[in-house]
């Protein structure tokens, strides 16, 4: 089975959930790295007085979590292009101190002809749930398999 066939066979497969903690230090470092040191992300005193009653995490923070491994997943070290990203929240931003159960699903593999050759599109979804199993956020990322990468993968 070549790499493309393997990806096709993974559609619908999920990882085992991994528990992640939204850590204060990790949120602070992330907020500083993205150039957005909002007091609600980094200043505990200010955040306590807010409607959230504590520190919250920036919208794209869930990409820092561990989501577990899909069995038999293959991901090349380089050559994949990040095409699209989506994240949506059910009830509000994540809070520092939250324990989040995260897992990922191999959503789809599709192909499309382009001027430069055949393009592959892998969609991975990632989910975060609270300890009661309630959905907190959903993320979706599209990775593009370029004709060049396809060649190096020997397909």
């Amino acid at each position, binding site marked *: 089975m070549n790499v493309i066939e393997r990806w096709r066979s993974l559609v619908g497969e999920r990882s085992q959930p991994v528990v992640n903690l939204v850590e204060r230090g*990790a949120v602070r*470092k*992330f907020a*500083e*790295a*993205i*150039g*957005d040191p*909002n007091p*609600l992300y980094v200043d505990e005193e200010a955040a306590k007085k*807010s*409607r959230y009653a504590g520190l*919250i995490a*920036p*919208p*794209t923070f869930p*990409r*820092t979590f561990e989501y577990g491994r899909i069995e038999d997943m293959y991901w090349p070290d*380089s*050559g994949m*292009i*990040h*095409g*699209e*990203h*989506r*994240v*949506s*929240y059910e009830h*509000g*931003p994540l809070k520092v101190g939250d324990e989040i159960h995260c897992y990922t699903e191999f959503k789809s593999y599709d192909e499309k002809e382009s001027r430069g050759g055949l393009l592959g599109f892998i969609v991975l979804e990632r989910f975060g749930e609270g300890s009661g199993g309630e959905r907190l956020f959903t993320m979706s990322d599209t990775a593009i398999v370029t004709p*060049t990468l396809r060649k190096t993968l020997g397909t």
Partner: protein
Amino acid sequence: MRKGTTGPAWEVGDELEGHVLSPVTRLQLIKYAGASGDFNPIHTVDEAAEEAGLPGVIAHGMLTLATMGLLFSPYLEYGYVKELKARFSGMVFLGDELYIGGRVVEAEDEGEGNLYTFEVSTRRGVDVVAAGTVGFLVFKS
């Protein structure tokens, strides 16, 4: 836009205050790699970028998206980013000066609050490097 104690109330067509970001530096990319756990060397090491056929290191796409959040940062006391979705359409290199902007395209009552949909984009000059939509929910109380 009106901004009172109950938070912002936008109308379709309103523009958010845009931001000109300071030029992308290698240190910024190293910091983001550390903070995000994305250590793909095409974002930090010249040789790795060149081996991948790039003229130099490129910024993490997720860093470009994260900076779109700056548009909404002033309003976080009143609401939150409910959805962010964007497509990458160009690479960002060291020294690039990016501009982020957004405009209201839809406003609706969602029960939980008022949901405003914005078209957002990150540009370098006239080149769009990422574009999409953000749903920002303003709580009712």
